[in-house]
């Protein structure tokens, strides 16, 4: 996830990574990782702490100051089969929420012009 500082809101963090802060720690699906320092005193996500707990690489572009946090590593790509709450735009720019298709089977296909 893209970052311009070393903190972000729990909502943004969950929307982008699928991990949420619960009393047990950082959780995604059934998996929880203890992380007592996941939140700052202001209730924001402490990026450096969660990066360490979840083995998420944090890279920084020194010139611009922008950072990007990679997904958790060390295991498999999927840790749960629950599909994240993903919203993407259609060709006209209108947001489409994948969860609007609950109740139907979905074949999600990646393609590209290139």
């Amino acid at each position: 996830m893209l970052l311009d500082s070393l903190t972000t809101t729990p909502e943004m963090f969950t929307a982008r990574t699928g991990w949420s802060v619960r009393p047990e720690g950082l959780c995604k699906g059934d998996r929880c990782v203890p992380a007592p320092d996941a939140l700052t005193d202001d209730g924001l996500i402490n990026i450096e702490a969660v990066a360490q707990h979840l083995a998420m690489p944090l890279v920084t572009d020194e010139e611009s100051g922008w950072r990007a946090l990679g997904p958790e590593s060390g295991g498999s790509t999927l840790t749960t089969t629950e599909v994240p709450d993903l919203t993407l735009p259609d060709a006209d720019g209108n947001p489409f929420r994948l969860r609007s298709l609950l109740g139907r089977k979905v074949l999600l296909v990646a393609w590209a012009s290139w």
Partner: protein
Amino acid sequence: MPGWQALHNELADSGLTVVTVALDLDPDQATPWIAKAEPTHPSLIDSTHVINELFGIRNVPMAVWIDESGHLVRPAEAASIERSPFLDIDIDDSWPERIQQSLVEIKKMPDSSADYRAAIVDWVENGADSPFSLRADEVVRRSAGRPAEHSAAAACFELGQHLHALGDHDAAVDWWKQAHALHPENWTYKRQAWTIETTPPGQPSDLQQVATETYGTTWLDDVLETGGGAVYNTTPDLTA
């Protein structure tokens, strides 16, 4: 796109929605294809390749299956439902050498389009009883491993994408080169970066992707270096 729209037409009344997601950093490259297919299925654009990270997409076409409760029943895998016409092309030795070599590799790519299409139809008919609908632990087990290098590649790609969008293309190239080195089997990172060098704005994509000047490589060179057409895009594992 026309093939996916046809599949959606065929199976929508039986409960399937096809969702196509274009991994195009510049949405304007994808929209002419979308318009031409006149989709009635959700046809979305993922200009930051977020589904790479979320599902493990690493080339196109790849797909995941999601059941009615919003759970994956198959992990990311190669997804073709039509036999590529390139597989049956007769290579003419008067064609440019690069084209000939590319076609030789393309013709090595395994074709499981008929079986994969039949598996989708079976799942739509039989749901969780279909042998192609996998248990949760099996979906997770079959998803690709993610070593630290692949995770770092995702971060480098995203940072490059953002710097490119901000107008600093040179900085973007440096980050994308890192992404390519960290995860050579991720073709979306490479093909997306190369096409920016090799496709003029508003033109159809140059699939040869001779990005030698900026990246020191081409699509064909990288295909050969990573094992050739036979391993370029793996076949879906359709065993139960």
